């Protein structure tokens, strides 16, 4: 620890050592042309790279994952390892609703995919729409009910509890025969061509990711955003200041659940087949990716999860198949290195390096980088 940071250090820094006090509100200072470039890329991508439509659609899904994880993990300081629960729950809710609209779910699943549900365009999209909305609402209800239980847990207990939640859901979904058990449910068949299907789902994922980004951008700039930041910095003090912490935590978690539920419903329809271990509750893949991506980009920042997700997804898609089984070892090493040696992430590092570009005024009396980091420990 050096010099005069004792006066200001801890109060001015968030958990990740980034000076925060002078950010009046989490205002977004991103120039408009970046947004324009992303929108143009998003719209044009399926026409420029038709062979990679699904991969780019998954990129939008990854961005959504990282952004929704960051609502609780980065902005509120509640590091969940089980957000994948809502992805799977949404998938199953939509599957049950969509199948249930046309036939009896129990007999459909007991046929073990023997009969496929073939629908025309109108029915298909109507059921997809209803299923997605039901998934979102169902996940919000689940988040509120379960949130009352898990939000009593603090710090690592919260992480372990949510991980347990996701793993338990995965085990129980595998034993519940009505929803197909371990052998899963086949979703309704898309009525058109495969390529057309991938474009349709690309558009859905793009819209969902844009919706998520606009939502969190708005959310972080409101009073609510400041309140959840206060919970992250010191929950006891936040409560003493009159913030109803449980209500804020529930709203933050259920908004993440809302978006994750919708993404799960759409992803289930894209894959066309749902089973608990690999598709609905992939706690060891998507469930961990969302944490890694948010950390890599810089948790607690608006753009960090987007950058982290993009980088992670591109590197993963390019190198994954060449690593011949070593990819998981590499992922583990990446987690370790990222968490232990580079926890501030890319965005956090850039904000520390060039604070004025992000609209942060640094108080010169505090040598923000090292001193703040040391003091907050």
């Amino acid at each position, binding site marked *: 620890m050096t010099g005069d940071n004792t006066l200001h250090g801890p109060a001015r820094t968030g958990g990740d050592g980034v000076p925060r006090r002078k950010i009046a509100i989490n205002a977004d200072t991103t120039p408009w042309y970046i947004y324009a470039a992303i929108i143009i890329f998003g719209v044009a991508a399926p026409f420029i790279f038709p062979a990679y439509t699904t991969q780019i659609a998954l990129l939008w899904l990854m961005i959504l994952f990282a952004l929704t994880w960051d609502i609780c993990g980065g902005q509120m300081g509640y590091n969940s390892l089980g957000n994948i629960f809502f992805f799977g729950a949404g998938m199953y809710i939509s599957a049950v609703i969509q199948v249930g609209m046309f036939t009896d779910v129990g007999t459909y699943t007991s046929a073990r995919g023997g009969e496929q549900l073939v629908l025309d365009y109108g029915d298909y999209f109507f059921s997809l729409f209803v299923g997605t909305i039901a998934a979102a609402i169902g996940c919000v209800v689940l988040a509120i009910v379960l949130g009352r239980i898990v939000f009593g*847990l603090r710090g690592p207990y919260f992480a372990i*509890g949510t991980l347990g*939640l996701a793993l338990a859901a995965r*085990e129980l979904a595998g034993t519940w025969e009505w929803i197909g058990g371990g052998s899963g449910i086949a979703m309704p068949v898309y009525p058109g061509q495969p390529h057309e299907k991938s474009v349709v789902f690309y558009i859905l994922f793009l819209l969902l990711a844009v919706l998520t980004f606009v939502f969190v951008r708005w959310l972080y700039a409101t009073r609510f955003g400041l309140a959840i930041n206060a919970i992250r910095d010191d929950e006891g003090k936040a409560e003493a200041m009159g913030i109803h912490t449980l209500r804020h935590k529930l709203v933050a978690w259920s908004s993440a659940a809302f978006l994750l539920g919708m993404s799960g419903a759409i992803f289930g329809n894209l894959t066309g087949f749902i089973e608990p271990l690999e598709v609905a509750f992939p706690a060891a893949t998507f469930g961990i990716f969302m*944490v890694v991506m948010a950390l890599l980009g810089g948790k607690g920042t608006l753009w960090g999860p987007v950058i982290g997700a993009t980088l992670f997804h591109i590197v993963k898609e390019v190198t994954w198949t060449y690593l011949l089984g070593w990819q998981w070892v590499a992922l583990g090493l*990446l987690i*370790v290195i990222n*968490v232990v040696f580079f926890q501030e992430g890319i965005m956090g590092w850039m904000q520390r390096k060039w604070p004025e570009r992000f609209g942060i005024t640094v108080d010169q009396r505090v040598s923000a980088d090292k001193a703040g980091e040391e003091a907050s420990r």
Partner: protein
Amino acid sequence: MLDNIGLLTLAPVLNIQLLLDGLFIGAVFVLAAYGLALVWGVMNVKNLAQGEFVIMGGYFAWHLGTLGVHPIASLPIVIAIMFAFGWLVYETIIKYVISRDLFTSLLATFGIALVVQQGLNLAYGPEVRTAESGFSTHSLFGGLVTVAEIKIVSFCLALGLAATVILFMKTSRMGQAIRATAQDARAAKIMGIDTERVYAFTYALNAAICGAAGVLVSMIWVIQPFYGIPHSIRAFVIVTAAGLGNIPGVIVAGLGLGVAEQYSGFVLGLEFQQATALILLLLVLIWRQVQLARYRQVVQ
């Protein structure tokens, strides 16, 4: 499901089988949980790689078994290897996360867990293995209850190991230093204890205990590269239920978990056996929270 409960009341001998199997496997859970309690209590690191260390120890025993070493004879070798491995992991990773927030240690050890399980998968493949110990199996009550000798041997070994570790912690110089560091690291440092070394030793000791537990698991049960996570979760359930530094509590909770898993596996079906530890974990966490809420009200 109800049929099986009826079966238990009709043939009470089956209860003995379930109880015995539960206790035998529970003794191994106790070892891993004790290691976790040690690391958690002394250096405040929540080691999610606990189960992976267990499985790693099991694979070493199995590997030595293919080279002609009897699993029980391989116990000291595995303990030595795992001790060195634990020290290495400490020096490269854990050293940097001790002073950080708790989520950091959780995620870092999760990364270690991922590396270990995938490394084992690459080295040994995904098949389910058992280390052959060559002991026979006894039947009691006219064949209704079977007891494998190896389970009794492993139970005794687990008890012996646990007793050794507890004695070591109570009497030896290093054990005293570890306990002093757990109580107050700063004060221990002032008294001239090299806390860095204590941390390294504690983590290495934990890895060694897990490795020993793994040898026992490989003899009485099965090992597979991805079976580590359930072991980690069990260790967390036991430690959370018992509370830190409560050795009798850890022993009771560990044996109890072993029995609970056998019963739920028998009554609800084998597929629920995996979920038992998870559901118990959630219940224990909720229960702790209710306790805390009550405590807060008392304080108010």
